[in-house]
């Protein structure tokens, strides 16, 4: 029975490592986007490509098998590796020229009112305790604690004020530089469909942006 109905095709399950969405071209013909293909038994020219990866070229030998698995490990494109390095540098530059100054100024601005009123209250307590201390009305530990609390509140206020000044000044001084920063772009052509795909970053929110360029 088997010899009469012998199959002349093989079901191949592709296991592609290194790419989510991949394209398969078999003997120069683009295949549907599925990982299971039924192909004629024999030797085939296989090309697999995924965005951000180099094109894989190899031979697929099915033999006489009814079904088989084919493992393809895609190699990350060197341009994409360079893009990742540029992206990290861009994020660092953007952080130091804009995010850090804004965060410092913003955080300091949020802390300043609290620190201001805290310092004022602690100073009032200190003045009162120093007054009582003149007459020996309070233990010396109380006046020491009061001085320490005021000192702490004073330092917090000074640090917050300095942070606000430094953050705001840095923001204005580095604004030109941060505006001039351009996010890196990774552009790659699908070797099968000839479409261009672009990957870059949103300048403001630093989120990746993906674009597709169609060539007709």
């Amino acid at each position, binding site marked *: 029975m088997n010899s009469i109905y012998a199959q002349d095709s093989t079901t191949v399950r592709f296991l592609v490592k290194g790419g989510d969405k991949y394209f398969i071209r078999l003997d120069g013909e683009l295949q549907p986007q599925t990982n299971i293909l039924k192909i004629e038994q024999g030797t085939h020219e296989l090309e697999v490509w995924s965005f951000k990866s180099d094109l894989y070229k190899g031979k697929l030998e099915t033999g006489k098998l009814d079904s088989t698995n084919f493992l393809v490990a895609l190699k990350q494109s060197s341009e994409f590796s360079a893009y990742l390095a540029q992206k990290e540098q861009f994020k660092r530059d953007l952080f130091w020229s804009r995010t850090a100054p804004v965060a410092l100024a913003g955080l300091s601005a949020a802390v300043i009112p609290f620190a201001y009123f805290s310092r*004022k209250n602690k100073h009032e307590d*200190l*003045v*009162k305790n120093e*007054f009582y201390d003149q*007459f020996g009305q309070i233990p010396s530990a109380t006046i020491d604690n009061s001085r320490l609390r005021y000192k702490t509140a004073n330092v917090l206020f000074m640090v917050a004020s300095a942070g606000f000044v430094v953050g*705001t000044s840095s923001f*204005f001084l580095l604004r030109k530089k941060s505006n001039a920063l351009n996010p890196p772009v990774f552009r790659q052509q699908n070797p099968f469909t000839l479409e261009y795909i672009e990957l870059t970053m949103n300048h403001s929110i630093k989120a990746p942006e993906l674009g597709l360029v169609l060539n007709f």
Partner: protein
Amino acid sequence: MTLKSFLQISILCLTLSSCFQRPKACLNLDDTYETGREYRLSSCSENFDFLTWDFGDQSYGFIGETAPHTFYEQGEYYLKLTAYADGGYRSDEIVQKVKASKRYLSHFEVVGESNFSKFRLAFGSNQIPGPSANGSFTEALPYSKQIWPEQAIAIPLEKVKVTFFGERNGSSTTLVSPDIINFENNTENPFILEGENFLVKVYWTYN
């Protein structure tokens, strides 16, 4: 926002913060306070958050708008009031000299028709005889007997029996019935003793 506008806003904020009103220390004190009596010292200060009171008599200081205080020893004291505002960063102080003293009987005056040779005032255990008392004494020209400083009779802050007598031929007649005056409450000057035919005004003075 540009750097220029940021700097302008910063300068404006600093200018406004310096416009806070300064506190003004002011005292509403009498010249003399009776020793042993508790007073509530008040202030006429303005624009303050809190006031500190240094009574200058080695007693404890006080923080508050009106200060309860008792001077226990006679003398002159320099009372210092400090008005603080803006968390104690701004202040103004005022020093005023006050005197603390006991009350002493100063003199007494009598109004009425008298055929007594002498008057005598009994203030607790103190006897205060007066000079010749025969005659007619009016509000305009009363009989008067100076007590202070020949006799230093302090008025205690308690109840005292006060009686007024007339003396004639070696015998005494009560002209004003014994009156018990509580000097803890009574600060009138003079305090008055009223009899049937005589009106006695007793004056007191501070040291």
